[in-house]
């Protein structure tokens, strides 16, 4: 319109001016929108102070108020040392590396994933801000990620080769012969800060702090976990001691030590009815291989003083069988030491030194040994009611089975509160235990008759859900008394021998359904015959 009123020359000038103006505005808008590092750092600082400083500290030194109750400690960003990277050992992480840990968290530690809580822009800003805590980021060239190909497939041969490499490059020195973190060097491991450091339990892949896929494992073999005793094995590849294929085989082997995914937590543990005869009496019996196992996650006892923020036992595998007379419960868990083991004494002392002790209690170092307690309600419970899951309460006592690595019996006890155990008299002990420690694993078997003569022994009725809870202690980790791992209530259900009626009913239903259908066909055919004779038969 302007062009028409003011003539062609003026029109083009105006259009040009307009275009130039628009371009300038767009450029300005782009500059304003694009997060300049400085702008991102300001936003990142706000996010950091709000959500991260509680553990990592306002100064980024890993000394937030929660830090003393965590092991491993929150990352100290001022030293520029990062475990989970795609870059070579000794190098800084890429922005993507930092973002990935923020997004996904570090399994097995207190670090959660933030991808659902913070926006992408906030997390990007956080990356920029974290880098300002260490002078190395500003003064170093941009870190180059190593080249990671896709994982080759696995095979029997590769797993065998992987096992060879596992021993060849001495993974077993720390991770132990079966990968449960029980190597001969384990008790002496510490990180760059001098904190006691656990060699990962390779049978719990869902707890790996850098992820549990084959690619994740391979990447860590190449990059190492800087700041921890876990080295990079890239130098062995460069020196042609092993090939990168060997490292892939090793990664596949390590992956094969854990279940396919994080085991599901199921509320009801079924004790199968052993039709074939009496229940096994030893933890080594092959019969256990056929029995379903249930994963029970364990966490530190942080309810009653003295609380415990550094539990060693992070879960139990529970199996149960009964034969109508006897109940057998087998509990299996990883424990790198057969406590009391003098080799681990120093470890416990170091753990006690490094952990905060907010409540009065023992800080003496190693406890007397390893211990496992299985709890049931001492008296029949109704509906949802059950005793307090930490060894009962004044009104509802708990009935305990306790196994100790350092002394035999008494197994059966009653408790009305944590630590207030009253062992049953020696002549009333009806539970037998059998235990094996092998390659970083305890297998402890408890057996008892379904009904006993002891009046304090609750009977185990078939076909009902009986509340059951667990507690575990690793003495060499400084655990004893109230300081150990706990679970809340689960249920034990003794499978009923399948009644004859359960087999008959489906057969009857099948026969009836078949008869009815046949009748229908016959009737339809007869009607058809009537309409247009003669016709075919079934």
């Amino acid at each position, binding site marked *: 319109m302007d062009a028409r009123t003011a003539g062609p020359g003026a029109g083009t000038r105006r259009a040009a001016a307009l275009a130039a103006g628009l371009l300038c505005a767009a450029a300005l808008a782009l500059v304003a929108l694009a997060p300049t590092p400085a702008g991102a750092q300001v936003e990142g600082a706000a996010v950091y102070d*709000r*959500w991260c400083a*509680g*553990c990592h500290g306002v100064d980024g030194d890993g000394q937030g*108020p*929660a830090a003393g109750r965590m092991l491993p400690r929150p990352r100290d960003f001022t030293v520029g040392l990062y475990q989970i990277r795609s870059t070579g050992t000794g190098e800084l992480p890429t922005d993507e590396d930092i973002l990935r840990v923020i997004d996904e968290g570090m399994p097995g*530690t*207190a670090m*959660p994933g*933030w991808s659902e*809580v913070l926006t992408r822009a906030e997390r990007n800003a956080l990356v920029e801000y974290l880098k300002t805590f260490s002078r190395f980021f500003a003064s170093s060239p941009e870190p180059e990620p190593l080249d990671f190909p896709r994982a080759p497939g696995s095979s029997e041969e590769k797993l065998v080769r992987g096992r060879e490499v596992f021993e060849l490059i001495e993974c077993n020195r720390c991770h132990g012969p079966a990968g449960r973190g029980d190597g001969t060097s384990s008790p002496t491991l510490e990180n760059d800060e001098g904190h006691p450091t656990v060699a990962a339990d390779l049978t719990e892949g869902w707890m790996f702090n850098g992820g549990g896929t084959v690619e994740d494992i391979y990447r860590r073999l190449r990059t190492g976990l800087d700041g921890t005793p876990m080295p990079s094995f890239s130098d062995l590849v460069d020196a042609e001691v092993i090939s990168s294929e060997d490292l892939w085989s090793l990664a596949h082997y390590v992956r094969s030590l854990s279940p396919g995914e994080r085991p599901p*937590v199921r*509320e*009801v543990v079924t004790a199968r009815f052993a039709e074939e005869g009496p229940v096994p009496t030893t933890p080594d019996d092959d019969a256990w291989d056929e029995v379903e196992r249930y994963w029970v*996650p*364990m*966490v*530190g006892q*942080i*309810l009653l*003083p003295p609380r415990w*923020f550094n539990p060693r036992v992070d879960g139990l595998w529970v199996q149960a069988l009964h034969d109508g007379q006897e109940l057998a419960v087998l509990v299996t868990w990883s424990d790198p030491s057969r406590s009391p083991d003098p080799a681990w004494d120093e470890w416990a002392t170091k753990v006690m030194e490094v952990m*905060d002790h*907010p*409540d009065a209690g023992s800080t003496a170092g190693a406890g007397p040994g390893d211990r496992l307690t299985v709890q049931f309600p001492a008296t029949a419970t109704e*509906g*949802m*009611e*059950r*005793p*307090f*899951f930490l060894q009962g*309460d004044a009104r509802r006592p708990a009935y305990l089975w306790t196994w100790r690595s350092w002394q035999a019996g008494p197994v059966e006890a009653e408790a009305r509160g944590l630590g207030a155990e009253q062992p049953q008299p020696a002549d009333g002990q009806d539970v037998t235990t059998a235990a094996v420690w092998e390659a970083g694993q305890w297998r402890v078997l408890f057996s008892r008759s379904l009904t006993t003569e002891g009046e304090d022994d609750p009977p185990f009725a078939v*076909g*009902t*859900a009986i509340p059951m809870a667990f507690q575990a202690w690793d003495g060499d980790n400084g655990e004893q008394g109230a300081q150990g791992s706990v*679970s*809340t*209530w689960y*249920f034990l259900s003794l*499978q*009923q021998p399948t*009644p004859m*009626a*359960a087999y008959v*009913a*489906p057969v009857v*239903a*099948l*026969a009836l*359904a078949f008869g009815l*259908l046949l009748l*229908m*066909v016959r009737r*339809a*055919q007869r009607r*058809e015959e009537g309409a247009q004779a003669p*016709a*075919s038969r*079934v």
Partner: protein
Amino acid sequence: MRFLDTPFRQALAVLVVAYVLIDFGIPYIPPLFGVDSAPVPNTVVLQYLLTVLAGLLLWVSDNDERWTEFKRPIQEVLVRPDKRVGRAVLLVAVPVLVAFVTWGRVKPEVTAPPSFRSIHPAPPRSITFQGETMQLAGLENPLRSEGSLEAHNEVGKRVYYQNCLPCHGDALDGLGHYAHGFNPAPLNFQDVGTIAQLTESFVFWRVAKGGPGLPREGTPWNSAMPAWENLLTADEIWSVILFLYEQTGNDPRTWEEAGAEEGEH
């Protein structure tokens, strides 16, 4: 769409689509509104499908022509000599299915007793806190009218990170690194159904007395929440409560709101 040219096939297709929608589709709806999802119970699926089936039967029997048309494929399978194979399959498959379903219903199986959880049990009028009687009704957070809110919040943050974080989590979403060990699961304070619905005195009661102090209808002992009166001072509890609201951006319920609602009942 030649496949869908008879009423029988149309009805079958509707039934299959309905099943897929009900069993797999419905669980996707709650997340759209920010609510956690769960699988649809089998009994509900069955009920919905029966409703759909009733509707289909009404439709196919609506006029005689369609009804005859609908019945024809069924009739054919029953009588036609060239459908002998289909007939045999039907005669075997249906009884086997019936037997299978019967087995699923009669085989002995034990499930955990249902654990209903009362998230907001009725609070008592007064509690004894560390030896002193405390009236809960009408009680406000004393720290809101005393000293610096920022300083109280700072204390609350420290208390939270040192004590509450393992279960209730860095994001206050009930997903701390110990949360997976506890059943029932720790409360999610970001959820508008939790602290946003409560007065601060209610929260004080729950923090101070924990699982062991739950009334009977709150399923006694069935919570891992510690009784924090054994570990924290009153001021520490009030500051951590301030922090919970501050950090999540929720506002506590006021006594006016609580009173107004009481009046309505």
